[in-house]
């Protein structure tokens, strides 16, 4: 589904990684592992089309993935380090903005991360784990074939990691692919490792 060939990432004069190739089949999962600064987040931003590709090719079902970046954006969900929440908006308002863009049911998505009871609270009063769960709720809104997750479980309690496991399993069962950078064990059975 997604294939990278000889990808490289430069930071100034220094190569963060080079000659990186991988294939991600439908329903597949790829775990990015590596030390701090190995380029895990940079690779995810590259795959999302947020930074230009310096070297190599990125293919989506055999075609150049980044030829039409708007279309590429529409088939992926990207979860960054930052939760991308507006502190003054309530949890529900934060999520319903994305529901207006992508479609999907805000209430069901809030329920899937266990935040239904806190939906009215402004995001600034949520704890960091609750903010992370609200960011994860975006994944549950509307299906997209590719999930790019950067440290998805940082700050999450065990019950929330289990809930994320349910979301991931549902996504993969529907033929979706996951690429996740992490230092923590993730509920991704059968995932392959890509060491940077």
């Amino acid at each position, binding site marked *: 589904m997604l294939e990278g060939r000889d990808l490289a990432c430069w930071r100034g004069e220094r190569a963060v990684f080079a000659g990186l190739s991988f294939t991600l089949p439908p329903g597949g999962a790829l775990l990015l592992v590596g030390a701090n600064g190995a380029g895990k987040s940079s690779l995810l931003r590259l795959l999302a089309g947020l930074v230009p590709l310096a070297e190599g090719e990125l293919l989506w079902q055999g075609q150049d993935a980044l030829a039409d970046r708007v279309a590429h954006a529409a088939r992926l969900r990207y979860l*960054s380090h930052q939760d*991308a929440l507006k502190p003054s908006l309530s949890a529900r308002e934060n999520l319903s903005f*994305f529901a207006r863009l992508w479609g999907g049911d805000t209430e069901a998505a809030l329920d899937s991360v266990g935040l239904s009871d806190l939906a009215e609270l402004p995001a600034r009063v949520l704890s960091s784990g609750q903010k992370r769960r609200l960011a994860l709720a975006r994944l549950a809104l509307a299906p997209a074939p590719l999930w790019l997750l950067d440290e998805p479980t940082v700050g999450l309690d065990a019950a929330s990691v289990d809930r994320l496991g349910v979301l991931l399993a549902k996504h993969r069962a529907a033929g979706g692919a996951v690429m996740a950078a992490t230092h923590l064990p993730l509920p991704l059975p059968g995932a392959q490792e890509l060491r940077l």
Partner: protein
Amino acid sequence: MKGFTAVLGREVRLALRHPGDALAAVLFFILVCALFPFGIGPEPQTLARIAPGALLAAALLAALLPLDRLFGAEAEDGSLDQLLLSGLPPALLATAKAAGHWVVTGLPLLAATPVAAAMLNLPVEAWGAAMAALGLATAILSLFGTAGAALTLGARRGGVLLPLLVLPLSIPAVIFGAAAIEAAAGGMEARPYLLLLGALLALAAPLAPLAAGAALRGD
């Protein structure tokens, strides 16, 4: 279109949660207009003579104030990445942000125009033309300002760079806007000047968002 209204609605909602930002721009506008009588002296004829230019310049400076946070705040909390990946073409996203800036900053300035016009002794007959000219000029500034904000995003001292980029581009808006108010104050037709402002707006509306979109995507 759905994405455009979603982004615009979000801008307005965020502004309503922080009414202080729009209020600060309005107060800045009124205070700058209030400085002129102190500096030039309270003679009514002199004030009325400079009123058109002073109104335009003060309004554009006030509208500049919130611009450096237009994309800066979004970039800091990670929202900009999500907006760029929202499936909206970057130029349309920039248009929505520019429209949001105008609704949130330009419209309150329009509401405060009669107060500022009265302080500058602008004849009441010209107030209508002043509102129209300021409405169009602030819309032009919102568009160029969005492009400037996108270009200076991440630059060191972007807040200083932004006015240096945007203000020269708004000189034509000041010329035609002041001419429209002056014509109305002198009992003449303001329409031709307002039409020229409209033409400037029609030029900026497609071009500035394209530039902003390209800058946001980093190509």
